């Protein structure tokens, strides 16, 4: 079976009107056995930049620690916050370093740049960036997420509308995937604040 589907995970990010959303499921399993339902897959870089990692659990944890190191060093050296695009390129080069022995993750980046413009992108496991105009998906339910996002996403959704859209997209996508689910976490990033909500979906 595919190593990317060993632990199971799903992550999605969407652009809204002066806001972005990023959401993930909470399941951590070992093939069919569910081991935990509060596994963190989305991480904060700064108040305007989040990223999520879908894929092999150990690589999710190791990479999140590596990115924390790199972004802290950046902040100290450059005396400024990381921009989403810059972070995306940092993720890309970090993954490509391991081109012939890769990290088994599919990252999703979501944030607002310094002008307040929404930004989302995803990369493959070796760092090819997909800059999207609308939404990005990753994980074992990615095919389902593509279908759901295509259906519910519209341009210029306000923060609360965006929350509904991304939540429905994620919840219904993971319901058709045995390896994703067991709860969800949604972050909405606006220029003023971050709204974080934990969803209880079908716990199976």
């Amino acid at each position, binding site marked *: 079976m595919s190593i990317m589907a060993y632990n199971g995970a799903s992550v999605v990010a969407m652009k809204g009107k002066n806001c972005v959303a990023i959401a993930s499921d909470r399941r951590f399993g070992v093939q069919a056995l569910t081991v935990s339902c509060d596994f963190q897959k989305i991480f904060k870089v700064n108040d305007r930049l989040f990223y999520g990692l879908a894929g092999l659990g150990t690589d999710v944890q190791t990479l999140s620690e590596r990115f924390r190191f790199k972004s802290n060093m950046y902040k100290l*050296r450059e005396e*400024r916050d990381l921009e989403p*695009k*810059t972070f995306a*390129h*940092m993720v890309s*080069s970090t993954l490509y370093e391991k081109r012939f022995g890769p990290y088994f993750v599919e990252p999703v980046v979501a944030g607002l740049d310094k002008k307040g413009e929404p930004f989302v992108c995803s990369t493959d496991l070796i760092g090819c960036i997909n800059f999207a105009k609308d939404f990005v998906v990753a994980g074992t339910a990615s095919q389902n997420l593509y279908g759901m996002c295509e259906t519910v996403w519209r341009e210029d959704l306000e923060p609360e509308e965006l929350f509904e859209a991304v939540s429905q997209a994620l919840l219904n996508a993971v319901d058709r995937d045995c390896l994703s689910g067991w709860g969800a976490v949604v972050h909405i990033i606006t220029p003023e604040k971050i709204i974080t909500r934990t969803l209880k979906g079908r716990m199976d």
Partner: protein
Amino acid sequence: MGDRYSFSLTTFSPSGKLVQIEYALNAVSQGITSIGIKSTNGIVIATEKKTPSVLVDDSTLEKVAPICATIGVVYSGMGPDARLLIAKARKAAQAYKRVYMEDPPVAIMVQEIAAVMQEYTQSGGVRPFGVSLLVAGWDAHRGHSLYQVDPSGTYFGWKATAIGKNMLNAKTFLEKRYAESLELDDAIHTAIQTLKEGIEGQLDASALEIGIITTDHAVGAGVETHPHADSDGMRFRKLLPHQIKDYLDNVA
């Protein structure tokens, strides 16, 4: 070199000075004067290309050099030492771009160059660099900035400065003529005037090298940056000979 000389040649004197660095600064003071002036809408760095004989083909000598699309340097002191630092700086800029897909901010570039220069004051078997550099650049975070880097690895931000042979007189001259409201064209004129003050005889357009940080991305010659770069940012450009001649004619 390092295996036989594991000890540094730059050692403290009883008074607490690193004499090798003092001597390196002397080497810089023997070098041709270089000027840097910050204006409201750009920076100018300039120097005179002085060759030992009229037979020298001075088109092969480059003292004002681009590091990347948004940063350029000029040096005073030993040419070969400067060339090595410029090569390292260019490589460092590309290494930064490999990770972040952006040109490095000026402050970061300056820190990297300064770190190299400091390394050579504390490593085995090497001597300090016999150059001071004026680094002019632009980044989206801090705008345009002008820095001086010395053989010790110390760096300073400047509004206007001079390094090399005539630096004391030149800085006095600049103190009188510098104003916060100076625009790039005025700054270029002032830089040429300052250089003129230091030399006996005529200043030849072909002997002048001028580099500018400007919003005009097409003036003179420069390094291309990647397609995603800030299209409304400033770039480092070297003035072409006929452009230098125009400025020189206006000064005279």
